[in-house]
């Protein structure tokens, strides 16, 4: 019997040198001539990142943590594989996401249910955990029936805009065309965001299954996953998953004996944040400069090569299989009216626990920060939260007592956005943060329209001056005017959202801006101001 060692290689485990542990295992197994019978594979989070590297051995279902040294590796290889005994002193209970579940017992895994449980490199493991069953169910239903199910689930897009997925599909399904496309937007580039990476690295087949169902429902026979070029591991895992799906006849012609055929491929981005904007993404796939297109027409009726195209975010597609497997009613037990299901958040910044969490919509933001994220590092107090990435919104401590769902957040002029939560402690300088954000947009503006091209540049120059003690009395007013102009007149979402967090910071932290501009002083001593 072949054994598999699955090592948690999420980002936090990598910090614990999980890669090194993987190499040590491979070396040790080779030394004992076990390389042929025991394979070592990466998987997602196993919930023990707080104490060290964790791993599971299948088919024995034994979890070891922390495995931190060469000695631990040698002990496991010798005792577990050579002697055939469980290493009691390193064994931990098989509770995947123990840390978070222990704290609250509420983390709901729908999208991430397989992450850390299966090898993302083997389609059979996905199938063993009900993989492709949602797609099978879809095939037994009519395309209209599938769209109805998705509409009934009230699933909303997870890419930021929150558009109802079923409606989007319906537009494409109803469009008459000889050719239609399904595109997965995996150009995750919003600073502070790494949730789609977690799905693609940990459970790539779920994305493929979601796309198959979308293809069947809308009458599309071709799919493209557009992944940013920097996500090497995501690209590798998805390409591997696609080729396995072809081998098993889950992609290609007449899938599972049906009349439905679907081809799928990965396209790599080449380093341009704007390509996350859906029409810029279309241009990039067509091989052009990744500049946005005029809307309307919208992609569901005129997208790739002018054909009807569904563009969904990775997380959106990852929700589809489970809805088709368990039904819209089951899905709607999670979340709150207007925002059903769960949402992934990428926790980062000054928190004790950073990483990706999945919580039902409606979970209170302060709960996510203080309980799941373990509160702020070094017991510092909270200054602000950037929610939804740097194009999202800046919230003050007074505002975080808000349920995270589309409707509640709209009341404080915010939204879940990309699902990033960047926590800023009292030691952070708002001007310094604004400067980093402005620098980002100045670099990533595509240059097509003037308000964004010139606006992002001017915004950066003004903030840079202020941070150096060269601010002028009129700067705030100029920034407000500039930001408003960008918001109202930029061609696409990039320029329209670029000033969001900066404008909110002007309103919410006027004293800090004034201290820099008028007193030539940074209250938290982050900026170096010339007297």
């Amino acid at each position: 019997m072949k054994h598999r060692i699955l090592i948690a290689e999420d980002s936090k485990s990598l910090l614990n040198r999980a890669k090194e542990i993987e190499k040590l295992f491979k070396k040790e197994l080779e030394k004992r001539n076990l390389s042929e019978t025991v394979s070592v594979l990466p998987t997602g989070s196993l919930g023990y990142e707080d104490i060290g590297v964790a791993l599971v051995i299948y088919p024995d279902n034994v979890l070891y943590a922390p495995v931190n040294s060469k000695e631990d590796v040698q002990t496991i290889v010798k005792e577990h594989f050579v002697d055939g005994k469980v290493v009691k002193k390193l064994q931990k209970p098989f509770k995947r996401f123990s840390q978070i579940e222990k704290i609250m017992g509420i983390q709901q895994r729908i999208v991430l249910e397989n992450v850390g449980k299966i090898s993302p490199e083997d389609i059979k493991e996905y199938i063993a955990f009900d993989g492709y069953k949602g797609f099978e169910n879809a095939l037994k239903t009519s395309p209209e029936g599938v769209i109805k199910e998705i509409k009934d689930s009230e699933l909303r897009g997870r890419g930021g805009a929150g558009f109802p997925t079923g409606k989007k599909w319906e537009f494409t399904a109803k469009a008459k065309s000889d050719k239609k496309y399904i595109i997965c937007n995996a150009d995750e580039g919003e600073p502070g965001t790494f949730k789609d990476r977690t799905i693609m690295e940990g459970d790539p087949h779920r994305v493929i299954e979601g796309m198959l169902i979308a293809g069947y429902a809308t009458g599309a026979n071709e799919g493209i996953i557009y992944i940013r070029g920097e996500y090497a591991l995501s690209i590798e895992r998805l390409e591997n998953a696609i080729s396995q799906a072809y081998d098993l006849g889950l992609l290609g012609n007449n899938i599972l004996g049906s009349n439905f055929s679907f081809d799928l491929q990965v396209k790599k981005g080449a380093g341009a944040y704007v390509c996350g904007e859906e029409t810029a993404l279309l241009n990039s796939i067509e091989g052009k400069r990744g500049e946005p297109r005029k809307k309307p027409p919208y992609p569901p009726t005129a997208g790739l090569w002018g054909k009807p195209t569904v563009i969904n975010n990775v997380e959106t597609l990852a929700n589809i299989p489970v809805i088709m497997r368990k039904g819209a009613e089951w899905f709607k037990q999670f979340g709150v009216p207007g925002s059903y299901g769960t949402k992934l958040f990428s926790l980062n910044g000054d928190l004790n626990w950073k990483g990706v969490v999945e919580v039902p919509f409606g979970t209170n933001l302060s709960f996510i920060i203080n309980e799941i994220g373990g509160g702020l590092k070094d017991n510092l107090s909270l200054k602000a939260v950037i929610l939804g990435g740097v194009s999202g919104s800046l919230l003050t401590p007074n505002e975080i007592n808000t349920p995270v769902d589309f409707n509640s957040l709209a009341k404080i002029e915010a939204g879940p956005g990309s699902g990033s939560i960047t926590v800023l402690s009292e030691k952070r300088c708002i001007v310094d943060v604004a400067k980093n954000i402005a620098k980002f947009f100045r670099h990533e503006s595509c240059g097509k329209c003037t308000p964004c091209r010139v606006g992002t540049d001017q915004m950066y120059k003004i903030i840079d001056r202020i941070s150096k003690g060269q601010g002028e009395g009129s700067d705030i007013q100029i920034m407000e005017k500039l930001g408003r102009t960008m918001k109202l007149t930029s061609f696409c979402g990039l320029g329209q959202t670029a000033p969001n967090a900066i404008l909110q910071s002007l309103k919410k932290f006027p004293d800090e801006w004034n201290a820099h501009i008028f007193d030539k002083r940074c209250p938290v001593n982050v900026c170096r101001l010339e007297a």
Partner: protein
Amino acid sequence: MKKTSILEDLQKAESHSKENYITFKDVLQISENKKTPLSKIYGVGTFYSMLSFKPRGRHIIRICGGLACHLAGGDKLINKLKEVLQVDVGETTKDGLFTLEENSCLGLCSVAPVMMIDDEPYGNLTEEKVEEIIKSIKEGTKK
């Protein structure tokens, strides 16, 4: 079955180059195959920050300049790399081993500050670690 796009042709040309760049010859070739003017090929190529028309080092270092890395002291690392490599951002070391680039956000924010060298990510960096990593790659390459 698959026709490649201009962007894919450029990506391919770059991946075949030992110096991680697209040569004029590549551009001519693509222009001819696609029956598209050179200006358009350059128009596409220069849009994307991962593509280069200048020779680059054997290894591309992408240091993250995103907000989470900035908060975690990323600026110090950029300075350290400049010092260790004796280059500015966008430049290549004299020995042709490294090109230093800054990335907008690598999406590894929970282990900030981070960098990638070619396809390999490195997280939770300190100035010392950065120095060690560069050293170990240098030694590894000499073999």
